[in-house]
């Protein structure tokens, strides 16, 4: 059980990072990016290619994955977000556009890297021992990197000038525009930063698991569930993300792995409805 929890913590930390990126785009920028999962996969392939073709260190690859995915997100922004905003279609058009782009990316992955599962070359390493449990060092490093980046991101968004500027521009767009903030560029920055976080999360994932073109959809669902269950609060995302990772690892060891996601999704819907029932009944009680 302890082994599962530790492995859940490491995967959960990556979920936190990718869900933070999604929450930044949706919560701060009010933009929907359903290509977020595919962006994670793009990050994975970047690391895979750099390591296998150029022999680079995987963690250098992780940094470059962030850069590449930021650029990729800039393209997504221009192709999907800009036209949906100018058409006044709101979220619905963004959902359609980014969903299509997501499928397009899957096809491109298939063309470039083939449809098979591929992984980094196996390397014999001495496992770390945590509480007597052997832990793959790659998982340990992924955990620490993801936690550190998430912490830096949250502190930066909350306290730095540029972080506050982003939040204020998202909330009072017209006011920001009126005082000379280059609003359009701030939104581009928000979107690309979200993408970069997905890319880094993908890069870290690549060090601990193989990749195939269609994995992205699963990561998208993770991002959606975590950030909506957390009601777009950054601290909430941290809690729910870790919980998601641990629940997944533990359930996988207890039941048929293909049922794990079913259980988690159903639990998510149940939590949503319970929350709704509680809030409506408490409203009614207050009225009475």
């Amino acid at each position, binding site marked *: 059980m302890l082994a599962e929890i530790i492995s859940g913590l490491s995967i959960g930390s990556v979920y936190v990072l990718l869900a933070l990126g999604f929450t930044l785009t949706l919560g701060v920028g009010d933009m929907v990016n359903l290509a977020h999962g595919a962006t994670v996969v793009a990050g994975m392939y970047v690391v895979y290619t750099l390591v296998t073709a150029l022999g680079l260190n995987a963690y250098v690859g992780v940094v470059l994955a962030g850069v590449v995915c930021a650029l990729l997100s800039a393209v997504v922004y221009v192709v999907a977000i800009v036209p949906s905003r100018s*058409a006044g279609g*709101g*979220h619905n058009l963004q959902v359609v*556009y980014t*969903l299509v782009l997501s499928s397009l990316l899957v096809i491109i992955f298939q063309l470039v890297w083939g449809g098979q599962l591929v992984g980094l070359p196996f390397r014999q390493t001495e496992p770390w021992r945590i509480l007597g449990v052997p832990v793959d060092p790659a998982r340990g490093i992924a955990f620490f990197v993801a936690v550190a980046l998430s912490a830096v991101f949250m502190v930066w968004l909350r306290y730095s000038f540029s972080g506050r500027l982003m939040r204020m521009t998202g909330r009072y767009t017209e006011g920001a525009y009126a005082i000379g903030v280059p609003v359009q560029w701030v939104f581009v920055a928000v979107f690309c930063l979200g993408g970069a976080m997905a890319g880094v999360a993908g890069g870290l994932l690549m060090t601990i698991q193989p990749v195939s073109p269609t994995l992205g959809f699963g990561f998208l*669902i993770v991002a959606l569930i975590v950030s909506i269950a957390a009601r777009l609060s950054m601290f909430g995302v941290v809690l729910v993300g870790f919980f998601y990772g641990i629940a997944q690892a533990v359930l996988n060891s207890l039941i048929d792995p293909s049922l794990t*996601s*079913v259980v988690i*999704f159903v639990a998510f819907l149940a939590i949503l409805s319970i929350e709704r029932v509680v809030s409506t009944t408490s409203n009614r009680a207050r009225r009475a």
Partner: protein
Amino acid sequence: MNVLHRTSTKWLILVVLAGAAFALWPLVGRSVAPTLVNGLVVLFFAYAWNIVGGILGELALSSMLFWGIGSYAMVLSLNAGTGMVLPILGAAVVCAVLGAVIVRAAAALGLTGLYLAVFTLIIYEIAAASVTAIELIGRNEGIIIYELTSVDLAAYLLLGLVFIAIAVNLGILSSPMGRRWLSIKDDATAAQAVGVRVGRERMIAYAISGGLTAIGGGVQAYYLGYAQPETALGIDLLISGILAVFVGGAGTVAGPFIGTVVVFGLEAVAINLSTDIQTSLYAQILQYVVAFAIIWMLSARKGARRGVVGLIKRMLRRISGRSTDPTAAVEEVHVTRAEIAELAKPPAPPSDVPPAVEVIGVSKRFGGLEVLKDVTIAVRPGEIVGLMGPNGAGKTTVCNVITGVIQPDTGSVRVLGDDVTTIPTPLRYTRGVARSFQAARLFTSLTALDNVLVGGANRTRAREVLEEYGLAHVRATAGAQTFVRRLIEICRLVAADKPVLLLDEPLAGLTADQQALVLQSVERLAASGCAVLLIEHLIQSIAPVCHRLIVMADGAVIAEGLPAEVLAQEQVVDAYLGAPLEGAS
């Protein structure tokens, strides 16, 4: 052009096309048939999805669940020897119910827009994930039909289904139901205020769409001879279908067809030229890019949701020289101004007539803010009552309490003598309470005529009223100017002929001439026996037409009586101008 607009012409075209398609199908070569069948699958799916995604305008992503249920039901039933009809009908019924349940659950959770899309996406994911855990339906490998299926029969079935799906779309769009669904897409709150029962309509739409989708899944499985997660629950079909709807024109009859031809046509050609997997992937990329480019170009302007169909309509109008500019209406309205000179205020009804609408002792709190304090208001048939007061006095809240948008904490609302306090908004409309909104809320997907019809008037009456107000030639309502919007809304009220009318600031943003015309129609409505509650803060404008004035301040009624008396009262002047300071003079 006009002939094309007639519904009977559309049905005729559909029947001719269906006949032609069935007659020509045997000529289709063996090599091309599989590609065409794939196209028919996308086409059918697009039409089934258009019902909810296009007409109702909601991004429901759970459709593949219904498709999957249909597919697996077909294979299981054939293998069990229970034939084709049972699984088709069974799955259709099950999925219709399931669709209704899903949208009911989403409504109970208060999910709209993006969150509705995510909710349905996760329901789809639950289905896709659980399929791989069920032994009965072969997990990842799927299940095959043991007996030999007839590919030709399947193709004809699919062809027939496509036309049935088009017929369903056409039937919905040319009926009051389609009008109601489009009005929900534009503005659900305003739709409720004109008597549209949003919850019920949504359930019907999801049920029809879900049932149809299941049938398509079943026939596809019969055609393929198997059902497996990739075909029965793959996301590719969903995305192609949605793309086709958006490219062609969401919520139109021709849209999904045009969209499928554009989206799928390229891929079909490429697949027929080569069987190489690489080529088909490039073809898919090409398909998405072209579709995207089309949506992109169309979305350069607002209202792009109508896709290629919208573009064609705009071009046709430009060629035929018909004006699409709704401002043209105003000039003609000015002609009727001659009548305004004789403002004949109808006499006030005798005081023993029972009120048509009553608000009795209503209070309402929002948290710590008491917005209504024991408010009592009554309006008799044929009476025009002005409800005045400074901003934040609670005028609009009274209006919302009468229409049922807001539930009062205490007190009751009566319409024509019946207590309606607990009755939902759409039913209050059918009982006789009609309202106009502060900023005229038109349904911009509907024409001017449909905007009047959605209020429940019959066609002849609606045309008559539009003619009377000089709006007979106005078609499109998107982008109409304030006065035209206001007039269309008034036409809806006039044509609907409801005994109780609530007009929320009907004069806002109008010139003096336009105000006079609006007030004149208010008087005519009262003369025909309507009880009119006129909410305004332009005192001078409305005082002459009102039989009584009621003044509110800080959520309470502070004065009530004949206009001249009320306006002379000190507390009324204070409420508007502020009380004079002690000692100041």
